[in-house]
């Protein structure tokens, strides 16, 4: 499985996952796409067969459901809660471990196809 980290996820998380050999990109790594709309972010993720990792639960659920209803598919939305994964670099390690565990359990791009997944700690 490949991941696209949303704009409010620390880009250091993507770098640390790449160091572990996973295919992960962060929106903040791409200056041109930082101002993208919610729809454009999800479309990019679909085009690259990536699941989106986001704290923005409300908006991505709507967009993901719309895609499924329109039979357009997506490659998963991984939802983060601040209660489990606090923001800030000091807490990034827990998020890296949680995502690494999920990636190891779900190696194929289609593992979370058209589904949401609330991330647990690794």
């Amino acid at each position, binding site marked *: 499985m490949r991941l696209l980290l949303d704009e409010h996820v620390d880009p250091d998380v993507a770098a640390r996952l790449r160091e572990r050999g996973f295919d992960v990109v962060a929106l903040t790594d791409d200056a041109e796409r930082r101002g993208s709309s919610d729809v454009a972010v999800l479309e990019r993720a679909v085009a690259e067969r990536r699941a989106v990792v986001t704290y923005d*639960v*409300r908006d991505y659920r709507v967009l993901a459901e719309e895609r499924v209803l329109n039979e357009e598919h997506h490659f998963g939305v991984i939802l983060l809660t601040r209660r489990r994964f606090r923001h800030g670099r000091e807490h*990034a390690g827990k998020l890296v471990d949680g995502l690494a565990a999920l990636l190891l359990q779900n190696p194929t791009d289609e593992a979370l196809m058209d589904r949401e997944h609330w991330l647990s700690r690794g």
Partner: protein
Amino acid sequence: MRYMPAKPYSLRLDPSTIRRLSEEAERLRVPARTLAQDLVEEGLRMRRHPGIFFVTRAAGGRYASLARRPRLKVSNVVETVQDSTGLDEAAGSLDLSRIELGQALGYYAEFRDEIDAEIAREEEYVDREERLWRERQGLVTR
């Protein structure tokens, strides 16, 4: 946005402005006077806080956000600052300049109750939805 009880206020507007206000209110299915009040309030806030503007998101919510990073709400920045050890760490986590961070915190200083309420509403929603999802998954650990 939360308002005090409204007071009458007379205003002359260009006919084309009135027409566009009516069309936009109809599109959004809100009374024109409500939309007008929102737009005046947003306009005043954006003048007072350059770098902040308002974005309607996919689920229909309208949020004070960073003009150069429209998907970053002021509340996202505040949460990150609250969870970080300092402002430099928070700025690094969101890949923001200290100026952009300062713009968001300046807005927060003036509208703190609103942003705190936004954060609380979001946490309540997320907690409830996650619990329901985990119940559906049969993985609940209380």
